[in-house]
């Protein structure tokens, strides 16, 4: 299975602000969640994928092409739904989506036909001849999605697609995204709302202040929670022994959060405690959801 995204030691900075730091990952086809707090580097990664930014160092390949060398080739195969406003208020939905298709190179007649079909798909068939300035936020988000998929892209980049939506609108948008995956469209969804990712994705990339926290399948993710450990003494020595095994540890007094990791963590903790001649007070497998894991990571940092 060919990766849709391959990133190798990618760093990007805006002057003194490092947006991405030494990122390396591979993403398989399917629906991938790109999660992280605001400022984690999600939008920077998406813009690097589109070839709109140039990496400070490192490289990336999108659908087998380097967006720095072949930005137009990559962009012709991508659909992008920006986070912010991107709709001209004085155009009808049908006109704008058709225009978006033509911008991707589709002939005008086919663009018009696909515009109608796509607006039907996102549930705006009745409203397609209304001006975008008269649309509600939810309807505008749907038009943004429609313009991103109208040209049948191989990869769809959605930047905070449920942003600004009420709970009902959010559910509808997530349902739409799930539905897209059933049409074999590869999707990368950027979001800071972890429950959205849990509901829609089968792969997740977690970013934290420009660093890769995790890149892997969402299925079985619950097995990769953290373990809360309390020791009698010498917590730093225990932590160092665990870290030597390649597992993250955040120490807080005599307590520490170990992981994320699978069931091999517990024996590793016991061995580390024994090697450090420290007694274990308790060891509890904790975080099971994506959000817990992310919060634990934030606490650790």
């Amino acid at each position, binding site marked *: 299975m060919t990766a849709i995204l391959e990133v190798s030691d990618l760093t990007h900075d805006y002057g003194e602000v490092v947006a991405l730091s030494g990122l390396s990952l591979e993403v398989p086809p399917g629906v991938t969640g790109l999660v992280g707090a605001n400022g984690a580097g999600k939008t920077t990664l998406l813009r690097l994928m589109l070839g709109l930014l140039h990496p400070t160092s490192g490289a990336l390949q999108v659908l087998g092409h380097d967006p720095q060398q072949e930005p*137009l080739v990559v962009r012709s195969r991508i659909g992008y739904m920006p986070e912010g406003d991107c709709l*001209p208020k004085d155009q009808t939905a049908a006109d704008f989506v058709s225009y978006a298709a033509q911008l*991707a*190179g589709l002939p005008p007649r*086919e663009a018009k036909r696909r515009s109608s*079909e796509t607006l039907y798909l996102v549930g705006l068939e009745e409203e397609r001849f209304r001006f975008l300035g008269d649309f509600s936020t939810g309807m505008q988000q749907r038009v943004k999605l429609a313009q991103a998929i109208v040209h*049948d892209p191989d990869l769809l*980049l959605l930047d905070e697609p449920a942003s600004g939506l009420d709970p009902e609108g959010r559910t509808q948008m997530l349902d739409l995204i799930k539905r897209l995956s059933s049409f074999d469209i590869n999707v990368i969804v950027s979001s800071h709302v972890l429950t959205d990712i849990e509901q829609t994705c089968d792969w997740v990339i977690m970013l934290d202040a420009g660093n890769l926290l995790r890149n892997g399948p969402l299925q079985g993710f619950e097995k990769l929670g953290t373990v809360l450990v309390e020791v009698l003494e010498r917590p730093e020595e225990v932590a160092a022994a665990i870290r030597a095994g390649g597992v993250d540890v955040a120490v807080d007094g005599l307590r520490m959060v170990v992981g994320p990791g699978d069931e091999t963590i517990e024996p590793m903790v016991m061995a580390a405690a024994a090697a450090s001649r420290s007694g274990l007070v308790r060891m509890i497998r904790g975080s099971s959801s994506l959000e817990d894991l992310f919060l634990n990571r934030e606490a650790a940092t």
Partner: protein
Amino acid sequence: MTDQVLYDRGYRTYDGPRRGTSGARKAVFKDGVRRVLGLGRKARQKIFPWSLIVIAIIAAAVFIGIHWAIGNIEESLRQEIPTYGGLFDFYSGISLLFIALAGPQLLIPDRTKGVLSVYFSRPLTVDGYLVSKIGAFATVVGAIYVVPQVVLHLGLALIAEEGFLTYLGDNLDILWKVPVTTLAFIAVHGAVVFALSAVIDRTGIAAAAFLGILFAGAAVAGRVAEAGFAGSRYFALLAVDHHPRIVRDYFFGDTVAYAPEQAGFEVWVSVVAIVVLAVASALFVRYRYRRLA
């Protein structure tokens, strides 16, 4: 109860032709033309551009009518009636209003409404985007200048004593003088309005700034040039709106002496000024949009 899908249109894949960058550029060009003419927009966006276009066509017809009427009374009097050059004077007024509206409309909404993020996620470069916008601008504004001149040309040929074809044959130079003069006007006005629209976020303010620079700028530059201090005459070159008019006068006969002429500059200086202004504006707008992309 479970959901049962009776019929789902689903999502149709597309295997047809993709026109890539050239298709994207054509789309931007076409959308630009439609935007400045208000096509596919609300009715109120059509009123202003189409009113100006109708006035321009009617004016050409009126000019022909005057020529015909005067010619019937006394053929020699026809020489006193303005023709191509005079029509340029009239249309430059109309086109200034049109450009004040069209230029900002072409650039500002895309930028302030975030539409640039859609453009540059497609196979379209900044240069391709700007060239298409400039092309749309030049096409529509050029049509406002050229179409009435063509109407006038054909009208004058129809009422010419020497006959239709003879008149056309005797005035072949019109076929290049009109486009070249039009180009001079488009270059100067386009350069100013595009540069302003690249940095101002409100279309109304950009339009006002454009008209202000052309009218007030020319007046102030003229006054400063006359001040008499060392090098003051060079300020006359800042009367940018006068340069295309000097080119027009060169081709169609003098009307008035414009500030650069009063300061002693030759026609070629105005031509150089037009080129420098157009290139500087293009580079500035390009720089600005490269940072935005």
